[in-house]
Each structure stands twice: as C-alpha cells, then as structure tokens.
C-alpha cells in the first residue's frame, strides 16, 4: 500500500490539534523532538508500510 490518503479523514480535528500541541507542555526542545519521534514511530508501526510513511515524508518535505 503506497497510496497516501490525502482526503479529509480526521474525525475530531480540534481535539487532535490540541492533543498534538499539549503533548509538548513542559518539555524542552530536545525532549520535544524525542517525543515527536516516538509519536511518529508509533504511528508508522500502526500504518505498517514503509512506502506509505515515505510518501508522507515526501509530501511533508514539499513545504521546504
């Protein structure tokens, strides 16, 4: 499955956004980066496809 689904799919956007930001509360930059990386790895395993994650990386990098 290399297809990256870019259609709107998030069920509760405001809650998701708040959760992503709040997760970093009280953390310094290094700890934040490490937390971010743990989240990415957990989600990557959930997706289970390196190709899909790579497609997401490509899409994310388009913004410079």
């Amino acid at each position, binding site marked *: 499955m290399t297809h990256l689904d870019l259609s709107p799919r998030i069920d509760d956007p405001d809650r998701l956004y708040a959760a992503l930001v709040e997760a970093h509360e009280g953390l310094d930059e290094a700890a934040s*980066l490490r937390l971010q990386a*743990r989240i990415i790895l957990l989600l990557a395993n959930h997706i289970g496809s390196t190709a899909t994650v790579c497609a997401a990386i490509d899409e994310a990098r388009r913004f410079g």
Partner: protein
Amino acid sequence: MPSTYAQPHYAYRPSPQAEATHPVVVVGAGLVGLTVALDLAQRGIDVVVLDDDDTVSFGSRAICFAKRTLEIFSRLGLGEAMLAKGVQWNTGRVFAGVREIWHFDLQPEPGHAHPAFVNLQQYYVEEWLVAACEATGRVDIRWKHRVSAIDPREDGAVLSVDTPDGAVTLQAGWLLACDGARSFIRESLGLPFVGQVFRDRFLIADVVMQAPFPPERWFWFDPPFHPGGSVLLHRQADDVWRIDFQLGWDADPEAEKQPERVRARVQAMLDMAVAPGIAFELEWVSVYTFRCRRLERFRHDRVIFLGDAAHQVSPFGARGGNGGVQDADNLAWKLAAVLRGEAPEALIDSYDAERIPAADENISHSTRSTDFITPKTKAAHAIRDAVLDLAARHAFARPLVNSGRLSRPAVLTGSPLSTQDDWDGGVPPGAPAQDAPVQRDGAPDWLLAHLGGDFTLLAFDPPAAIEGAVVVSSNPAPGAFWDSEGQAFARYAAGPGSVVLIRPDQHVAARFRAYDPEAVAAARSRALGA
C-alpha cells in the same frame, strides 16, 4: 605490546636485479592479499607478494570472522585451525542503559558445519595464511619490499620497489592491489576514493582477563558506566576481550590513550557489566575514526583492487575483512581460469559486476549502523533515542535498533555469470551454496566440504550416473552423500533428478530440474564469461 601473542618476523630475501615478468604480483601481505595469493597458488598459479613490513597485522584489528569467511578458509585448508582457536558465537545482545532491549541469534537453525561467527585476532589468521602460502611452494612472499612507483601498461604493470638493498624493478602481468585503506597504488593512479567520514572517535581497548561471561556480542547504548556513549564487549582467543568505547568527535585521542585513563574507564565498565573488582591487564589501546567509501571501479585494465584498498567500511557489522576475503574468493578462480587459457579476459570484468554491488551492500549496512550509533543531527539523535525508548517496552521497535548488522555473504543477484531460472525458493543462482549434514558410506560429513575448487555438478537422486557429479541421495547409496536429515533436498528446493552447477567459489551458477548435458555445458561457459 600484546602479552598473549609473539609477533613473528619473517626473513627479508633480496630480489634478483633482473627477472622475467611475473604472471601475478600481489601488493600487500595483509588479510586479503595473502588470501588471494593462497587461492591462486592452490589453483596452480605462481604468485609474488610484496609487503613493506616483515610481519603480520599489528594490534587491534579484525576479530569477527563470519560463517562465509570460515567456509572460504575451510576450502583453503585453514578452517579447522580457526574453529579450534577462535571463540564461536551466534548471539548478540543490545542494552539501553542496563536493560536488555533486543537480542539476535545469527544462526537459528542447526545443520551447518560452521557457526555464524568466530572471534579470532587477525594476526593469527594472517600468520596461518603465510604458512599455508609457503606450503604451496608457489607463493614468493617478499618482505620489506615497498612499492614506490607503478607504471600501468596494457599488458600488466611495471613496479619500482624499495628494499633494504636499494630499488628493484618488477614486471607483473596482473597486479592485485591489496595494499589496504591508504592504498599507495590507488593514490598513485589518482583514483578517487569517495564516501563519508563519521564525526566520531572510538577507543578500542583489548584487555586480558578471566571472566565468567558468555561468548556473545554485548552492546550498550548510554550505559551508566559510560553515559551518553555506546560500549561494545566481545571475547577473543587467549582470554583477550575487545572493549570499544564511543568517545565523540571532541575527544582528544592522545589523552584518551593514556593507560591510566583507559584503565579507569575499563574498570568502571567491568565492575558494573561483568563482575565487581575483576582484575584485567591492558593488552592494546588505540583510537579510531571510521569511514565508508569505495573506488568507482575495482578493475583498471591489468590492475585490480581488493579489500580495504577497494572499499572501506566502519567496523560495526564486521564487514571489512569479511568483505575483502569474499573479493579474493571471487577473483582467484577467475584469474586462474584466464591465466590457464580456459576463459576470456572479459571474465575479469565480472569481478566488478559482482563485487561492486556486494561492496555497496556492505557500505549501506555499515553506514546505517554508524548513523544509528553516531546520529548526525539533533533530529537524528531524537529519532534514535525514541527507538531505544520504545524498544524497552514494545517488540515492534526492537528490529529498528541497529548496533551493527553483521556480515552476511553476498548474493550475487543479477550476475552476468548466472543462468536465470524460475525455481521457487532454494539457493538461487549467484548465492553461495548452502551446507547440509550428510553421510557417506556410514560416515558423517558436510556437503559444502565437497563443493567448489573447480566447477561441481551437484546431482540429487540422479536417475542415471553422471560422470564427476557429487551425488546427494535420499536413501543410503554407495559413494553418494546420503541426505540423512533431509536438509540438502530442502535447502536447495531440489527434487529427484535436480542438478545444481556450483562455481569454483561455491556460488551457484545454474539449476535444472533434470540433467541435460548441453544445458549444463552452456551454463558452465556462461559462468566462464564466454
């Protein structure tokens, strides 16, 4: 100065002033140069080896010799000595802090003559290679002969060589450059050696101790006895242990090598990791930085590069020496066939076609391991630490932990020498032949010991006799190798009547469901570059 090993010093013998052209000259009597010289000599080729020194490898270098290397050295007659003296191991453990987060078994299935690895100091292997070379009567090793200039020609090369008695000139039909990572030959031909340097330093301490510790590879990330760095512990022969401390780029190599400083580091580590207060002696200390790079091409007409002269990797994964030995294994039979007039010179091009992808595989693995151990940026560091965090709790993250992906034999996929087929499973063309326990006339034996040297046809339950074939039978039969445990048929995905053509270096050239002499002959000439 090592206390457990007496360094041999070999006698210098003057070279004659004028000599005929030598068919093959090897520059560098290191691990790889000696291996290729021995292999060529056992194939009936006379070889001159030049080395600037008068002894074997000095101090801490390779210790981990992989199964494929052991198989190659067994073919050359050194396998038993290596198994007897070396420390055999299959298991590696990785710790984050003091907690074990991952372990791997490199040889999970039984039925192989050789273990996944033996640990043995490089100088022993080189010393035995020198003796084996001399025993052939065909290898002329010239110590204290330093190549100081090379003039490559269409039909070989002319070398200027410095000796204790002054300069001599040597002519070579083929020149095998095995002169190591700082290759003089490579530099004098102006060939770029490109890749990357890792901004990190590693302290390698070899210590002698009696320790109640298993023969396994233990690797720590950020242990309490060396916060922020990694540490590797490995057992070698003679109760010598290799300890490898990651120091970081800013470390001062001279200060770090001071014996008192090293002793304090080692004691702190052993107290916690092995046994409190354990006694040890320092055998050897050095500080390294590592690189991953290779030549664009290994063959330059009559000059061919092997080993570290052709490619260099970081030691995480033990791919340097093991890769170089496979270079020698790949080239020797081809060069011998060309020199004997049995194959066109174009066969030598397949050395590049086969060994460049193999070098790239080694470089890729060792680069990825080093990138995990030495993250280059803050973000990379965070990802690495996140993997270690998660691995402690979740199985899914453990395969991401990379403390070195240990050397595996090259599968020469897409080799121009292979005859492709549509088999499902088994040992594909290009892959090294698999071992299996067998019995011949009631005596236990190993299949691999009877493959290679020359082309071999491996025949499974052949319906009619095939001259010269190595026969594997599903029931005991006189002269045949009885597949007593069914492993040979299974590993090769063979059925009754199947035949497998094995190259002189034990890699598979072709497979057929039934014996057809013409098809086998065509596959053989393809494998000889015709």
